[in-house]
């Protein structure tokens, strides 16, 4: 998963992810690196500050289609969603995202 350094995830954090995430998720994150980078770059542009947390708590988002995710995020006010992304990430799912 060293390719995650492209989005400023440090080696130390990558090692932490390898411990935290399940084998299947890690495998998918490795294989689908093109999609993962696309989604993470989109989230960064959107205003998400900590991409490591996305990988740690919501790796499923990284495997979603970017356009689907973009569409999902139009349902709520952007400022509210950014607040959740940056302060209470695991509650995002309670907003059906």
């Amino acid at each position: 998963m060293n390719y995650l350094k492209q989005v400023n995830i440090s080696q130390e954090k990558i090692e932490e992810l390898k411990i935290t995430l399940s084998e299947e998720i890690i495998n998918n994150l490795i294989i689908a690196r093109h999609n993962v980078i696309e989604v993470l770059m989109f989230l960064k542009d959107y205003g998400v500050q900590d991409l490591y947390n996305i990988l740690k708590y919501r790796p499923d988002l990284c495997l979603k289609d970017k356009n689907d995710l973009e569409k999902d995020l139009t349902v709520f006010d952007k400022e509210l969603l950014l607040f959740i992304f940056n302060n209470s990430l695991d509650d995002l799912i309670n907003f059906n995202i």
Partner: protein
Amino acid sequence: MLKGKNLLEEIINQALLEYQSGSDEQKLAFDNTELKAFLATFKNPFEDIKNLSDGMLNSITKHIDSEESRKKFEVIIKYIRGIAKINADKENKIAFSNEQKAKLIELEELIKKVIEKNEYLANNIKERSDKQIENYRHILVNIQNDKIFIADDYDIVEKIVREETAVTAEANLDVIFSYMNEHNSRKFKDLKKSTNLNVEEANDILESVIRNENIVNETKLVEAERTQRIKELIVTLGYNYDELEISLKLKLIAVKDLDRLKKTAEILISKNLIQDLKPGNVHGLVYLLINTTPEVINSALELLESNYNITPHSIEFKKIMNTATYLLTEEGLLNFKANPLFLKNVEIKKIIKNNISLLTTNPKKLKNLASKLEKIGADIDDILCKCPNIFTAKIEKNLKILKMYGFDLESFFADESFSYSVLCSANLDAKLDQFIEVGLNDYIHENSSKEASALKSLIVKRVYYAYKNNLSVWSTYSNVEKKPDKTSEENLKELYPAELISSPLPEITHTENQEYNNAINKSETVISDFEIEKIKSTYPVMELIDEGYRAAIYTNAPKGLLKRKTELVFGTQIISRPKVFKVFKILMDLKKSEKEALLYAITYNTLLEPHEYDFIKEAVERIGVDRENELFKAS
């Protein structure tokens, strides 16, 4: 000699690392894009500084040589940023000092220098050609296999050293050539000793070494032919082999059976599956080439079409190709076929949209979880439809937490709502603790068949309230990254200007301990009734606190049982009982004193008025065992 060997290995490894990762170049480009974007919006530095993220600041300050200066600079910039953040919401803005303004100008200059440096580095990385890298590897293999160095190797090493360490090349070459000479001399001596060779024979061996080199050259010819075949194959798939990352090239070169690779490429072309990969997804393509076969692809296509009506070029198939590529390998397809969830009548398209990883998750794992959930009355189809993330989240911990906090799991799953998502919380216990301590326990459990939706609605409301009032949502929230090297005081200084720190902050009534908080946040401890009894028998002080401060409702009615299970009452303040036992246990595992651990456990993550804190502190101080008289004092 060892010094020369180590030096040469270090120079080559460093160069290869930079080249192989490829990410260095991309990272530098990423850093620069980010920094340029920041500078472009840095029109009013005193206010716009708030847009500077910690990651960006790190990428800037890492270019400051002295660690002390670096840290000092970071602290000042973060402090100024803290003021800017506060100013953003205030009408009467706090003025910046001249010194602070100078620091922002210094920051701007530093960013420009960093951008220049990154650009230089990025260009420098590009300058290593494939041929050079091949030479680097050749020398490294020679060193590792303890081979004799021939004349060409000396030329190569000289080029490497001059290229990679231009400033110290002469001194480095001295040390490295000495190593190579001594190494060759030792190799010849060893050969002569082991076979009693005379000089003439040794020369013969030297010749044979050169002859072997010729054989190696012939092998290289075969390798070149293989590489050519791979290049041609990659071209047919729409990519230029020479432009691939080195890691992909190595993966392709390592494939023994090029015919199989060719057949896989042919089926991808003939079925036009390449168009289902996103443009640029060359990693996915190479993964498919290496890890699948035409038979597996055919089998997967047939299964997807006949059972789920998913055909190539459909939206769902494209998603599978790009983010569940593993399904198109033998093992991935077996997992999918054996997946207990998809034997059921579920809408697979929803799963593909919302949690595609489920398609290839280990079926045994899913079967175990599904069977546990079914035992407590969960409707698997319903969960898959409404919240498939449950199957990839660590929900077993949350099920234990719900049980400990008095939820009836059967009712929880009978609640026909979209509330399963609360099971995916990373810190469900902390959320429940907060609701208990603000007196919402009754509200959650008011209607046992609606506990799930009541809990979810409270969580959503709390998030919204925190957003509207700019508050922390769950103040010791586990996914907020803690900074263990900082004291609470430093964190405060970062967040608030000095004049605010000097005045008392009413809500902070006790000392936060970062070490304790980190241990609590990282802990996976889930408290249970059994665990509570064990803690009480080990630490009598906990027996006393539990007896003295549990809700005084002595009834077998569900509400009474719930309150005695989940609440401690200190004067007017309700404290979460499971929280106290959990935090106490974690701190005792850190070998803290009982009283300190107990006070911290009770007040942890609780907003208290000073008099409430004093009440609890006094209660903890009074509680204990008079060892001489063996008299227990509870309150």
